[in-house]
Every structure is written in C-alpha cells, then in structure tokens.
C-alpha cells in the first residue's frame, strides 16, 4: 500500500516532468537547428556569391583553368562538400568532384522538380523561391544550394561569344555543404537534453519519494499502527504526531476519537454493570425476601413469647436485630436497583445545593467541617429531578465528611455555567450547555489505584460503615440526567468531584 501511493505519485510527476522537458527540448532543439541551418544557408549564399564574384572575370575571359582553380580552392574549404556548375540542359560541366563531370542531372528528381515543373528549362527563378535542398531528405547529411547564372550583356558581348544574347540562364552554380558538423552539434545538444531530462526526473522522483515518505508515509504508517492498536482493543493508545498539516489534524481527531470512544466504552461498561447489578440485586432481594420473612416472623414471635427464658430472649433479640439489618441491606440494594426514572423539571442548581447543605449542617458542625458555598446567582436552570440531585449532593457531602474524618476541614461547593470546551474528556455532547457543580474537600484523598473503581457498585473503603452503593447511585443518577461526573484526587490533599448537568432545553432556547 505504501509503495503504491509513492509509485503512483512518482510515475505521474515523472511523466509530467518528462513531457514538459520533452516539449521544451523539442522546441529548443528545433530553434537551435533552425538557427544553425539559417547560419549555414547564409554562409552558403556567401560562398556562392564569393564563387560568382571571384570567377566572373575568369568567365568573361573564358579562362577556364583559372576559373576551375579558383572554384577548387574555394571548394576545398572545410564544410564544403562540392561545388558544381551545370549548363542549362543539366549537364555537369564542372565539379570539384572530378567523377561528376559530364553527368546529366535528372530534372524530374524531386529536388529539381519544384522549379522544373514543365520539363522546360527555367527562364528566371521567381523571387524568394527555395533554392536549398537537403539530401537525402529523410536523414540529410548535405545541404545543396543552387544559384542560376543569368545571362548578362557582358557575357554575350565578350570576345569569346560563347553565349548568345537570347539565353536567359547560362547555367547553374550548385554548392553542396556538409551537414556533418550541424548534425554532430545537434546530436550533442540532444544528448545533453536527454541527460538533463534523466537527471531531472531522477532528482524529482527522489525528492518526491523522500517528501512523501516523511510527510505522508511515515505518519500514515503511524496512523495505521494506531488503528491496529485500537482495533485490537487498546483504546488508550494515542498517536504522537506533532505535525501542523492535515495528517496532524487527522492524528489529533483520531486521538480525540479514541479518547471519546474509550470514555463512552467506560460509561457503557459502567451502565451495563450498574444495570446487571440492579437486576441481580432485584432478583436476589426477591428470592431472599421470603426466607428473611420467615426468619423474621418466627424469631420476632419467639422473642415476644419467651418471657420466662431471659437468656434465650437475648439470643433471639440478636437474631431479630441482625435479620432486620439484612432487611436494611436488601432495602438499600433495591433502592439502588430501582433508581426510578428522574422526573426532570427546570431546577435551580443553587437551591438544590443549599437544601443538601441544610440537611447536613448539624453533622458538619459536629465534625468541625466548614462548608464554603460559592453559588453565583443567575445560573441557567438545569433539567433535573431535585430530590435525586439532592441525594447526589448529600452523598458527595457525606463522602467528603468521611474523607475529612475527625480532624476537621473544609468542603467547598462551587456552581458555574460550564464553558463550551468542558465536555472534552468525557462523552457529553458539546452541542449542549451545562451547569457545573464542583465539590472539593480537604480530606484524605483517594489512592490513584482506587480512583477508577469508586463509582463501581459494592466498592467501599469504609468497611462496615458503607454498603458501596453511594457513589454508584450518584453515578447512576447523573447518567440518567444525561450529565457527567468526574473525579480528581490527590492523596493526602483532597478530592474534587465535578458534575455537569444539562441546561434545561426550553430555557436554553428561549
């Protein structure tokens, strides 16, 4: 999978690079070639002019030896293949290549055909007509250039009277230039472009590979590893990707997702546990009620009847008392199990707090506990069952009281309208507004190992004093209110419970 992404990108970018370089190189080479050819043509024309002007006098004088000598001298220059002179019928009357002399040219040959269309000797070349030709046309190695030698008065007035005045064209000067140098320059340029293209593509590909590797592939493989961890059930795994790009964002939201997932799972697990404990408790209570009734009725009856046996009466009193204690335990269990659906209505959080505080004020005074209430006015009303919420606060206050113990201390309860980002770290909907209730104490704190257990039913550190259902009940009530509760604790310093309750919808919209 990793290979595929980088290969795809490299292939695409490499192809595009190659195409761009190719087009650029083609245009560049073509321009270069055109320029060289133009240069060549210009110098060819110059040579022809040179030949014509330097041989004009010899021609007039009809000094063919000198004429040929001059042409040979010019023709021996580097880059000049051969210089030929044709007469008007196309017979080669002179050539620097002696083998050509006396041969007839085929006027139907393609190179000639443009001018000699009608199989007629040409009278005069039209202006701007092409006088050059590349031979062979497919892969030219030579550039031919012709220049007609026109009849002039001096030609037919000259002493030799070789030419008649009626003739328009006396012959043709044909210069053949070698393209070897041009071709070699072009080949070098092509090679250069090719090497450049290869290096460019290789460099670009390498850069892309390294870039993709560091920007995409490594983070992606980290993400893949993370998803595998999460899929395997390790919801505490986080991606440590400190990038400020889209993948960094992805990692961030991935971490947020797993965090919320783990919180949701934890809550689900907890609700499940509460529900099954509830069912269990209800079942056990029902089963145990009847035997307990039998024990209680018989023992209390015997206790009443045995007036003459004081020692047995005492024992029976123990049985009655302890059976009644069983009854209270079952009752507590069932109270926990039934936890009726809250009858929610718009309620003032501060009033709930004050009522809970009033219930415990005597107890607090007795235990030298100072209760600090920070209850700002004008909080939005929450949607809550006041008696259940009061029970929650009473439970939390009583826990705080127990945690503080004999030495005395302080409990602080603070209410506030919760800010929007308060829902981070729990599974509450961020679309909702919440009111926060914070209960802090200066008590003994909770050992770190126990923090995750305190909301579990039957978890207690109070021995005989507690039934381990208080905080489980708190948790259950808060959950039924669509709220959330978290706990922070430092051993020896104290504990803070943080409750979030949803603001009443109707009021929130109004």
């Amino acid at each position: 999978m990793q290979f595929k992404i980088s290969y795809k990108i490299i292939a695409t970018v490499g192809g595009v690079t190659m195409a761009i370089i190719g087009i650029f190189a083609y245009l560049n080479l073509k321009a270069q070639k055109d320029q060289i050819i133009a240069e060549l043509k210009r110098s060819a024309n110059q040579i022809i002019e040179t030949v014509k002007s330097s041989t004009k006098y010899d021609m007039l004088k009809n000094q063919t030896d000198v004429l040929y000598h001059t042409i040979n001298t010019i023709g021996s220059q580097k880059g000049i293949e051969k210089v030929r002179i044709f007469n008007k019928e196309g017979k080669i009357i002179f050539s620097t290549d002696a083998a050509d002399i006396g041969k007839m040219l085929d006027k139907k040959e393609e190179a000639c055909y443009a001018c000699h269309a009608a199989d007629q000797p040409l009278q005069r070349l039209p202006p701007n007509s092409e006088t050059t030709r590349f031979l062979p046309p497919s892969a030219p190695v030579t550039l031919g250039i012709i220049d007609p030698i026109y009849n002039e008065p001096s030609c037919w007035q000259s002493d030799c009277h070789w030419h008649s005045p009626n003739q328009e064209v006396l012959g043709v000067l044909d210069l053949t230039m070698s393209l070897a140098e041009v071709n070699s320059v072009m080949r070098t340029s092509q090679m250069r472009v090719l090497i450049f293209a290869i290096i460019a593509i290789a460099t670009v590909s390498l850069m892309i590979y390294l870039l993709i590797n560091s920007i995409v592939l490594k983070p992606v493989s980290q993400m893949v590893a993370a998803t595998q961890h999460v899929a395997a059930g390790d919801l505490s795994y986080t991606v440590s990707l400190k990038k400020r790009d889209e993948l960094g964002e992805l990692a961030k939201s991935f971490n947020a997702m797993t965090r919320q997932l783990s919180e949701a799972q934890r809550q689900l697990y907890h609700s499940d546990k509460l529900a099954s404990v509830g069912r269990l408790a209800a079942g056990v209570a029902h089963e145990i009620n009847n035997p307990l009734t039998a024990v209680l009725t018989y023992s209390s009856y015997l206790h009443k009847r045995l007036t003459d046996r004081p020692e047995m009466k005492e024992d029976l009193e123990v049985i009655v008392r302890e059976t009644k204690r069983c009854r209270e335990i079952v009752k507590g269990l069932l109270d926990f199990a039934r936890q009726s659906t809250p009858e929610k209505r718009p309620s003032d959080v501060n009033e709930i707090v004050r009522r809970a505080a009033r219930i415990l004020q005597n107890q607090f005074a007795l235990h030298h506990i100072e209760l600090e209430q920070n209850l700002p006015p004008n909080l939005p009303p929450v949607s809550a069952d006041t008696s259940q919420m009061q029970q929650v606060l009473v439970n939390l206050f009583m826990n705080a009281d127990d945690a503080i113990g004999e030495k005395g201390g302080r409990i602080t309860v603070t209410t506030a309208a919760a800010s929007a980002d308060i829902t981070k770290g729990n599974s509450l909907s961020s679309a909702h507004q919440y009111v926060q209730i914070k209960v802090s104490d200066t008590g003994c704190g909770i050992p770190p190992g126990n923090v995750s257990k305190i909301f579990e039913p039957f978890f207690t550190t109070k021995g005989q004093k507690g039934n381990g259902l208080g905080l489980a009940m708190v948790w259950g009530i808060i959950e039924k209110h669509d709220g959330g509760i978290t706990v922070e604790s430092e051993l020896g310093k104290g504990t803070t419970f943080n409750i979030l309750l949803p603001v009443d919808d109707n009021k929130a919209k109004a």
Partner: protein
Amino acid sequence: MNRKPCAARSGGLPVTIEQIMAEQPKILVVDDEAVITGAAEKILRAEGFRVRGTADAEMALTMFRVDPPDIALVDLMLPGLSGLELLNIVRREYPQTVVIMMTGYSMLDNAIVFLKCGAFDFIPKPFTFEEMLSAVQRAGRFIALRAADRRVGSEAASPHRYQLGISSWAKADQDGTALLGITNLFGQLVGRISRVELPSVNDEVRQGGPLAQVVAQDEMRHTAWSALSGRIIAVNHFAQEIREPPNGDPLGDSWLVRIIPDNLESEMMNLSIERSR
C-alpha cells in the same frame, strides 16, 4: 395483645363491636412460599385468629367461593394470577373482605397501586411478627367498626385533603409546602394511642414509605405510610402529646409534619379524596 374495643367515634355502640370482635376474623394467607403461609398460619392462629393458607391464587378463589374470609393476606408474586389480579377480583366479587397485600421492599410503586385499587393496607416483606399482627389487628378492628356503624369511613372529607389508603392524608399549601397527617380512621383502628413517633426535620419521607409510628398502649407499633414524598421542614410536636382525646378523635385533626414535596402534582394523582374501604 389488646382485644378490647378501641376508643372509637362509634363509642355509643360498644356492645355490638365487642360481640363482633368476640368472634375472631377468618384470615386467608395466599403466598407461593409455603414457609410464609406456614409462619403466618402458626403465628396468627396462636394469636387467636382462624387462619388458612394456600400457595396459589386459583385455590384461593375456590376457598373464597366456599367460605369468604374476613381478611386476605395476599403476596404480590403469585403463580398464575398475580397478586394485583387477585386483589381486583376480590374487591369486585367479595367487597366485604379486607385485603392486605404483602410486597417486597422498594416496591412502593406497586404498594401505591394496591392502595389505589382498594387494598386495605400493605406489609413490606420481610416483616416482623409485630408488623404483620399490627396490620391484621387494624383490619380486624376495621371490620368490627364497619359492622357496628355503616358510616365508618365516610368521615367528612375535607375537600383539600387527599388520602393514601386509610393511613395518611396530604394537603397542599399555598406556599408550595404540604401538610401530612394521619387519618382519624387510622387512629381509631390503632386503639388507645400511647404516643406517636415522628421523623425529624430534614428527614426525607417517601410516598408509600413510613411516615410515623403510632404506638398503642399495648406497645403495638402501627406504621402509617406517607401520602407524599418530600423533605420535612417542620414537625408538629403538639400532635405527639395527644393521648386520650375527649372527642374520640385520637389525633385531633392536626397535621403531623410539613414537607417540601418532591413531585406534588404527579404524586397527588395517586391519592384519593374518598377513603378507600
């Protein structure tokens, strides 16, 4: 135990009550647990009642057809017919029989439904012998009172008082609080009252849960169930002092506690103006 006629408003006809009380009520105990019916039979029989027991509701109905009991103690959970169904049949076909339901703890919602359906009272399981006996005693006295005076139970109902069964009444006040008290009838059924034990301020009471214990002079404790749920904000200590009322109204008409009700509107739906028989 106190077998004497209690101080009742129908004080003008003591002979009739005594005549009826002389013949102990017939009791039928319906519970699918033999140990419960066994215990109830044994103990109530020892207290002088005529008791029979059965494990299922069909059998109970057969026994009703043969010889309708005066008092039926019916468990909530029964095989076949449920306790509630049996209650409804008995109320319809044998209205003279007083039904006491036996329910598990924290089944207060059920208990309230029973009272609404005409049950005389309920005893939450597991109960002590005294708790069972007190309910049966009150039922016995109720039957006696009813036989002596057909006006029993038609006590002048105050339009603002709503009752839970026969034990307590509630009255909503203008300021959002509510008053709770024990009905005259309950007081009459207890007999001679020694004292009333009330909860304290800041205690929570629950509809169908215990409100007060009325202790008779024979030390029998009678639990009156609360008509509403809420937090107690005031207690009428004067009511605790009442012992021997001159007018035959043992608790005087007075309220016992003032509460801030939790769910006044919805709980009021469970109460009735008319006293259930």
